[in-house]
């Protein structure tokens, strides 16, 4: 155990993150990178991008509140050190996604009203369930909720967004790549630290399983809301991609993600693949640390 915990050092984080994949970046992307004019000049795509970015900010604000709260709950200093680095990671995510809202034309004085307008209420409830565990002082449930459920969802959602942005919006894709790299450490900590703690506290399993089931329900409800409103923007994005490809004398490519052709799959298919992928990951990750995955009820 001592060797395992000794990996969580500030020096290692510095070498991997600021001196590694974030070196020479500005707000998570290459200096001079910008949102594509095809997005900024298109009302449908612009509003869709603002709405998507607000969900990312809402999720990251929750992660920042949870990880900072968990620092003082951690039972050992190695975990406190790791959670301190995670707190800075999450604060950076809040900052870079907020900066993206500004890059999309949202005025600074309109930030909070924009977040209030677009933040999905089911995502807010998802966050509240986690933050209740943290404010109750429950370290194990807090880390499972934060580093396995929330981060596991973010990891997969960011991968999907990165795959859809790679060709048309390399600035946003690079921003997402850096957050995905951060999430690797976070899910790793969640599994590795809780994998040992849960065996010492088997009485926690039932409560954690109920929390996972409830958070999963609100996650699926968020997906349902977001995808039910996204048909027009998905079609518009494909039209723009086709036009751009024609201008360049090529084709828009065949971005595939977990078996779905992102260039032709219906919105319902993409939502289904995303939900199945995230829930499958929950099942695998929880199973590895001795917690039984609980299927959530399906939102109406």
């Amino acid at each position, binding site marked *: 155990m001592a060797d*395992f915990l000794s*990996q*969580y050092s500030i020096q*290692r984080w510095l*070498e*991997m993150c600021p*001196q*590694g*994949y974030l*070196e020479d970046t500005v707000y998570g992307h290459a200096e001079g990178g910008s949102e594509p004019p095809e997005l900024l000049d298109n009302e449908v795509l612009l509003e869709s991008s603002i709405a998507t970015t607000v969900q990312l900010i809402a999720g990251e604000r929750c992660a920042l509140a949870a990880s900072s709260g968990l620092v003082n709950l951690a039972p050992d200093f190695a975990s406190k050190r790791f959670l301190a680095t995670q707190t800075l990671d999450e604060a950076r995510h809040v900052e870079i996604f907020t900066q993206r809202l500004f890059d999309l034309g949202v005025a600074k004085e309109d930030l909070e009203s924009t977040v209030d307008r677009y933040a999905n209420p089911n995502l807010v409830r998802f966050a509240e369930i986690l933050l209740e565990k943290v404010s109750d002082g429950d370290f194990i449930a807090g880390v499972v909720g934060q580093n396995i459920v929330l981060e596991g969802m973010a990891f997969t959602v960011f991968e999907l967004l990165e795959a859809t942005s790679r060709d048309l919006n390399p600035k946003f894709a690079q921003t997402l790549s850096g957050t995905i*790299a951060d*999430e*690797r*450490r976070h*899910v*790793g*900590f969640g*599994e*590795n630290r809780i*994998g*040992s703690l849960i*065996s010492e506290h088997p009485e926690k399993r039932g409560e954690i399983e109920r929390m996972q089931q409830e958070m999963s329900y609100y996650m699926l409800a968020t997906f349902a809301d977001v995808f039910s409103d996204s048909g027009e923007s998905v079609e518009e994005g494909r039209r723009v991609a086709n036009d751009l490809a024609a201008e360049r004398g090529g084709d828009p490519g065949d971005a*595939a*993600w977990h*078996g779905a052709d992102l260039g032709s799959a219906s919105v319902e298919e993409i939502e289904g693949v995303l939900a199945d992928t995230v829930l499958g990951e929950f099942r*695998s*990750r929880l199973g*590895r*640390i001795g917690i039984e995955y609980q299927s959530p009820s399906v939102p109406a």
Partner: protein
Amino acid sequence: MTGTSQVHQTLETDREVADDDRRTFVLDETGFKEVPKRWRRFYRHWQGEGDSLGPNEVICPVCKVVIRSTREFRPGDRVYCMPCMSRMVVVRRDDGTLEAEVTY
């Protein structure tokens, strides 16, 4: 897509490697920047559909990066994933392929 090139066994001088008949590989950097520079050649990003694993590669089940070794993997090998700081052991699945199982 493995980014590796095989090296003739006789070039290998490491005693541990010489103890068995494993193939050895020279690892090239693939642009993976999520670990300190001296370790970067031991990892690469999984490219999704169309990608495949070499005999010296396994996927980390926790963070999904490809972990690479200078030697062919065998069941029982211990593996460390630096990007997510997980420790694993290589096992053989029923279909004959190798995968990494996390140890806590």
